[in-house]
């Protein structure tokens, strides 16, 4: 297993957000998380990236427990990239510097190597021109693409994407999702929290529906979207359909 969550629990004060999540993700698999707002999608991804300490349970990467207390999170984070909904880029740095910062400071690549990585990745995703631009000179879609490139520059084995299109104008969503489409099949393992049901259906190998702090139901996209068995999944899908998001 690439990634394994065993009985992961997380509460904020009284509020139980993750109530014992069990999950196994194979290398190269694309798993989407859906569920209503507040169901814990973001919290789950942040726990996997060790941005939130978990209260109980364990997280394994390649069989290696990464969640143990006292363990240095930084080497783990190199192997697990994350892209957030917004405020990803460092606004005071050029696109180039945004990408090369961690390469030079964390994995100690030379400035030339880092530059080479940045420019070839940017070219690959159609952003070659933007290497010396600053984030506020880019559209929201371009910013999110740069954020993905920045995460990819560290050659992570797992990529976590947390609603990367929710803050975007509808016409910019496509270009960002195209990047994710291109990544699927490249061997990278992806965990995606999303409200874009069509996208989840298209891209995922497996869809997990979160409710009450647990994976209430999981299965292939067809199974979850066409034949959900859990009553809460059905209700949730009816609700998103009603607001026209399916």
């Amino acid at each position, binding site marked *: 297993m690439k990634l394994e969550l065993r009985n992961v629990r997380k509460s904020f004060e009284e509020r139980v957000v993750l109530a014992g999540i069990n999950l196994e993700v194979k290398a190269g698999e694309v798993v989407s998380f859906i569920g209503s707002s507040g169901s814990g999608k973001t919290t789950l991804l942040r726990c996997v990236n060790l941005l939130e300490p978990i209260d109980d349970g364990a997280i394994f990467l390649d069989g290696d427990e990464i969640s143990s207390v006292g363990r240095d999170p*930084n080497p783990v984070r190199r192997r697990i990239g994350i892209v957030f909904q917004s405020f990803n880029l*460092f606004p005071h740095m050029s696109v180039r510097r945004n990408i090369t910062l*961690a390469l030079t400071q964390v994995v100690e690549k030379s400035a030339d190597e880092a530059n080479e990585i940045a420019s070839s990745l940017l070219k690959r995703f159609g952003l070659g021109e933007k290497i010396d631009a600053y984030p506020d000179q880019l559209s929201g879609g371009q910013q999110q693409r740069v954020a993905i490139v920045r995460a990819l520059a560290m050659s992570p084995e797992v990529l976590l994407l947390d609603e990367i299109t929710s803050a975007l104008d509808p016409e910019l969503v496509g270009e960002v999702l195209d990047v994710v489409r291109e990544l699927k099949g490249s061997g990278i393992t992806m965990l995606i929290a999303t409200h874009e049901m069509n996208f989840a259906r298209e891209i995922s190998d497996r869809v997990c529906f979160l409710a009450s702090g647990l994976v209430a139901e999981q299965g292939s996209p067809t199974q979850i979207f066409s034949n959900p068995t859990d009553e809460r999944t059905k209700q949730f899908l009816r609700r998103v359909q009603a607001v026209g998001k399916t």
Partner: protein
Amino acid sequence: MPRWDRVRESFFNGERLVDSFPRLLDAFVLDIKIFAWSTPAIIALALVLAITRSSRNPALFPIRIFVIGYIDIMRGVPVILWIYLIGFGVPGVGLERPFNSPLLWGSVALVLTYGAYIAEVFRAGIDSVHESQRAASRSLGLSNSQTMRFVILPQAIRRVVPPLMNDLVSLQKDVALVSLIGPIELLRQAGIDKAKFANFTPYVAAAIIFLMITIPLTRTTDYLLARERKRTSATRVR
């Protein structure tokens, strides 16, 4: 009834003005010097205090408590009192020259107090950087201190330049407080001239000299504030 000719004679006496002005300007050089050597020390101290106070390292907890106490105490007492206490008090405990100079310890008092004021300015700047910036940086594998150095501080400092300038304008004026413990700077020289001729014109001249510095500084601050506001509102609305 106050008489205009008496007012003019006492406050705006041309002869006294011409006589005092060069001497006052000379004395003002000391104000500039105190300002010039205190400011870098103040900024350095303030940065150290602010970074320590904003740190999330649990091991630094006792130091953080100490820093909070220090800032509260320095800010809770008038600057002039610290200048008396440190500037008069410390040289009096039997230090040898040159370490018994009121000028030195007066400057130290300014550094210790203004360091605390400006630490709060920096802290506000650090707090104003969105939490996701920290998360974005940490998620790339950068350590806490690398995050502070490369991501948080550069943004924080940029944002606090205008309020920082405001405090520096205050400092420029408060430098004159050091005169109260001896060194002959502008305000003190004006007092001497005033006493000699029983005429207030030297004070007015001193005020003009302060204004020559503080008004341009204040206008620059306003300009920077306006620019910052324009910049942030342009990037926020999307």
